[in-house]
């Protein structure tokens, strides 16, 4: 009995397959076009050529009824092609953008022409920051930002507090990687200048000129290096402005940089080292403005081609290595490429 079950199953499967096969419509033979003896080419409309030797361009007999127009095609025949429309090839997705900054340090990459970039962030000390930039002609970018990283203290020894909102404007121009020669890093020369910050009878301004270089090392790593030249102005009450550039070049020039490593297919681990001025409003002139190093590390995650989520840790004054000052931050980066696409389409026309 147990041996009969497989046989029955096989027989049933064969019968079922045969039933399905016989239910299919019979194939309609399609005659192959054969060249007439006079050498004229066969018709291309699918009609079989005459086999009795009549010329193909002869008019049809008058006594035969014209073929019905809306007769359905025979079973098995391929459906008629009514019209062939050219399907435009889908546009390839634009290449990913190298962003103009790491976590804090500037990079050598420029925004492509027409790309709008914005980054908004919040941190555990209650700071809010925002940065918006616009790419100009693949060689320049312009942006405005509000930063929460500039701090000031009333006197030496007191706890510094955040000077916010501190508005800045940025203009950068540069050159893409490998543009002049192979292994040439991306280069950017940028200038950032603040609007005047005024609070509690204090006024402060900053300016920064930086030259940044970025290069890919292998397929997963990007190395960034920059040199920045700072200036600042601090005024308290009616006394004159105390300027950083009066303190000598050694107090104005700093080197920073960072590394980005693509750890998984959609996320980078970032480490960067940057500088920010800190003010002391009642200190002596040489100590009125000091540049403080900031160490940041974090992860940038590609949510979509137009959105990235970043979070990480920064230590505002790594020189002190004070764990209590460490901040955890979160940032959302949005990239709008609509204008870039419109400009590309117009150029193609």
């Amino acid at each position, binding site marked *: 009995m147990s041996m009969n079950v497989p046989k029955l199953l096989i027989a049933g499967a064969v019968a079922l397959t045969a039933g399905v096969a016989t239910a299919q419509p019979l194939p309609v033979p399609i005659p192959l076009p054969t060249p007439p003896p006079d050498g004229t080419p066969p018709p291309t409309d699918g009609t079989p050529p005459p086999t009795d030797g009549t010329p193909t361009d002869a008019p049809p007999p008058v006594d035969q009824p014209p073929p019905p127009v809306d007769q359905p095609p025979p079973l098995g025949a391929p459906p008629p092609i009514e019209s062939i429309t050219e399907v435009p090839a889908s546009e390839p997705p634009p290449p990913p953008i190298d962003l103009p900054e790491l976590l804090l340090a500037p990079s050598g990459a420029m925004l492509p022409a027409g790309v709008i970039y914005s980054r908004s962030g919040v941190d*555990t*000390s*209650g700071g809010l920051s925002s940065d918006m930039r616009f790419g100009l002609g693949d060689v320049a970018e312009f942006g405005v930002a509000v930063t929460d990283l500039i701090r000031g203290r009333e006197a030496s020894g007191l706890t510094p507090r955040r000077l916010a909102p501190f508005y800045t404007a940025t203009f950068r121009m540069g050159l893409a990687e490998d543009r002049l020669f192979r292994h040439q890093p991306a280069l950017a020369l940028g200038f950032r200048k603040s609007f005047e910050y005024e609070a509690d009878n204090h006024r402060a301004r900053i300016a920064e000129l930086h030259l940044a270089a970025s290069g890919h090392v292998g397929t997963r790593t990007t190395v960034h290096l920059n040199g920045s030249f700072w200036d600042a102005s601090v005024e308290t009450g009616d006394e004159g402005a105390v300027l950083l550039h009066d303190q000598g070049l050694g107090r104005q020039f700093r080197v920073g940089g960072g590394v980005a490593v693509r*750890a*998984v297919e*959609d*996320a980078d*681990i970032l480490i960067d080292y940057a500088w920010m001025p800190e003010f002391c409003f009642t200190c002596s002139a040489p100590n009125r403005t000091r540049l403080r190093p900031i160490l940041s*590390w*974090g*992860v940038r*995650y590609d949510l979509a081609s137009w959105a990235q*989520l970043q*979070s*990480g*840790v920064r230590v505002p004054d790594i020189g002190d*290595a*004070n*764990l*209590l000052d*460490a*901040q*955890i931050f*979160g940032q959302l980066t949005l990239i709008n490429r609509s204008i870039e696409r419109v400009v590309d389409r117009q150029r193609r026309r």
Partner: protein
Amino acid sequence: MRRTVPLLIVAALASGAAADDGALGRGPTVLTIPTAWTQPRTSLTAALDGDHRGGSGARITLGYARLVEVDLRGDGELTACAPCAGPARAVEPVRQPTAGWKLALTPWRDGAVAAGVRVPLGYRERARASEAFVVLSQRLGPVRLHAGASTWASAHRGADGATVTRGPGASVRPLVGLEWTPEIYPRTTILADLQWLPQLGPTAAETAPRWAFAWGVRYRALAWSAIELGVRHREGDELGGATVMVRLSAAWPRATR
């Protein structure tokens, strides 16, 4: 008898994984110490806890990019004592909201290494503490082992009104943890961990890290939720001074069983 114990240990380790990990199986903490796990996909985990002394806490954790966990937490893990010794010793929890950030890598199979920080939210002049840690987690069959080190920095107002600060260099201490999911109870995990936490005293000399040992059980009743029952002992407490705690956790998206 000599051979029986090693054989039992080897058998336990070789008996394989017990249940689907899910967000709660690879949770951000054992009971109190951080693990090196991160979630295999973007997920949100929330936990509420309470203890028999009326303490409570809450935590919400976002894991993303398979590399990072960010959390917001409010609890009474940090404690202050005044006086800190003798029969009149009194210890009270210092409530502070904190944020945590952890970066984890999985360089080898069934193992992970993570580093992170925990910092106070906002500026608190009365008392605040930050933590940095490194932890390594390894899964060996039904057992998960965790080991690492943590350090703390703290600042609080002392008895004389001056600020007492303690830097991270003087507070490096080990942390260890164990999770065991028996094969016969695939939804139940036995937990134990040990770490050192700062205790803020009225003077700098009395401000020091103290050990805290916790043990308990996690029961994953549903694919998306778990309940933990535990007991915590702190250095200097008598046996009756232990704290019994309960924690309810939920994860989204839920794990697949």
